[in-house]
């Protein structure tokens, strides 16, 4: 780890000022990803700005009937908050599907959005990686790519975003509140993370020096019919091969509205308006779900090690939408997939 200077801010303005004064500075909240990457010499900040004292750890109702989650709310506190459990159980479930309780106790809501990929080549500083070192090449395209993307990848990068929480935030259509030196702004969740294209070094559309201050959830929470289904190599504490967040609203046996997103398959949580449109007005059955899954995966492209993911993703979508329709969400402590 390179040497760095440590600074601590106790209000947002201080933190932004410190960040603007030093373009290689990084904010630290939980530190669960940043410190790991610093040990591996992948992240090399010359200054660390500790934002843990900022007053961004509240969960509040919004006037519009939603919820505003401060960026520093720890993952455990978010998942266990009574309003989240009651109104947005898909978010609580997705959080509990990720990491370990120790890490969830440390990790912040804002930091979860800013997690970097777990691609082994990104972590291994002696191999080429366009995300770590732009222009050096992608080792994963012809390398070990079992965990990698099947959607939205480019020749420059086939890494996936590792978050579970973000897959739920995608279907909840969260809004990301951001503060910068010159202005505050709100970013729709779908526009927050980027596809790799030719600049995989940029994971998100945050500008340099900007900070996430809150995650806002609109009122619709799909609290009756939802699930978060995660498939991984071991039964707990592993990144997703494929995961699905799903929420449905039914009118009798017909789907009034539905949303679903895939995790573990792309550089960002993967949603498709056309696939969701194929749910509306249709009977909530396996045939409808399979058709929607087919649309979602119509442009899927596999690599040598991850061909299984296309079929796995299709089946997971059908299973997740079935769980949601039946009102029987996956229980994260249960290792039986219902």
């Amino acid at each position, binding site marked *: 780890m390179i040497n*760095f*200077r440590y*600074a601590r801010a106790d209000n947002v303005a201080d933190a932004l000022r410190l960040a603007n004064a030093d373009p290689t500075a990084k904010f630290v909240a939980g530190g669960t990803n940043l*410190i790991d990457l610093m040990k591996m010499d992948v992240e090399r900040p010359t200054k660390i700005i500790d934002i843990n004292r900022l007053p961004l750890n509240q969960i509040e109702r919004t006037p519009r009937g939603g919820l505003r989650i401060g960026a520093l709310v720890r993952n455990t506190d978010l998942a266990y908050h009574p309003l989240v459990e009651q109104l947005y159980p898909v978010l609580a479930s997705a959080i509990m599907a990720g990491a370990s309780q120790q890490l969830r106790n440390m990790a912040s809501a804002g930091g979860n959005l800013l997690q970097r990929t777990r691609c082994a080549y990104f972590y291994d500083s002696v191999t080429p990686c366009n995300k770590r070192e732009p222009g050096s090449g992608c080792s994963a395209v012809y390398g070990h790519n079992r965990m990698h993307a099947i959607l939205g990848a480019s020749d420059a990068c086939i890494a996936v975003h590792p978050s579970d929480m973000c897959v739920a935030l995608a279907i909840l259509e969260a809004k990301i509140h951001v503060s910068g030196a010159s202005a505050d702004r709100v970013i729709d969740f779908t526009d927050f993370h980027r596809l790799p294209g030719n600049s995989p070094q940029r994971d998100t559309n945050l500008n340099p020096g900007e900070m996430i201050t809150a995650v806002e959830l609109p009122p619709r929470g799909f609290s009756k019919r939802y699930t978060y289904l995660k498939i991984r190599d071991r039964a707990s504490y592993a990144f997703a091969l494929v995961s699905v967040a799903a929420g449905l609203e039914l009118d009798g046996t017909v789907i009034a509205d539905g949303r679903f997103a895939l995790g573990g398959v792309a550089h960002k949580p993967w949603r498709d308006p056309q696939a969701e449109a194929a749910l509306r007005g249709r009977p909530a059955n396996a045939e409808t779900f399979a058709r929607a899954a087919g649309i979602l995966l119509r442009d899927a492209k596999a690599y040598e090690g991850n061909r299984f993911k296309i079929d796995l993703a299709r089946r997971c979508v059908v299973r997740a939408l079935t769980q949601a329709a039946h009102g029987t969400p996956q229980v994260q*402590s249960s290792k039986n997939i219902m």
Partner: protein
Amino acid sequence: MSSNLVDAEASPDLVQLTLTINGARHTLKLDPRTTLLDLLREHLDLTGTKKGCDQGQCGACTVLIEGRRINSCLAFAVMYDGAEIVTIEGLARDGTLHPLQQAFIDHDAFQCGYCTPGQICSAVGLLAEGRARIAEEIRELMSGNICRCGAYTNIVAAIEQVMVQS
């Protein structure tokens, strides 16, 4: 600028902080790169907390900060200035083992013992959270602690015993 702003620019190498560890107050000057784990083991000779993977994947370094279990390997000590920390060395009271320590002995919940301090601190955190009611939930919420000897069955039994008692 607020008065509480700490900026190490004035002294780029060392940062001063105060921690309460197992009830004892420590005022320290540290290289900001020092993890809480290395502080405990290398500076304070509290070697009960173990370094396994040093990447947050094994749980051997689990300690309690303000009563919550965390991975001390992924924590810069300076970030926890003012915090109260409990390690495996701080669980026994007046020569009497913590109920979980006793239960781990009763159930033979270890073989080599390297993961055990982390397992026990994690289990203390688990009981404080009050979220696990059945063995399945204990297993899920203890999944951040790896035991390569494979003592999991007995670890779950030990935790269940204390859960029933409390």
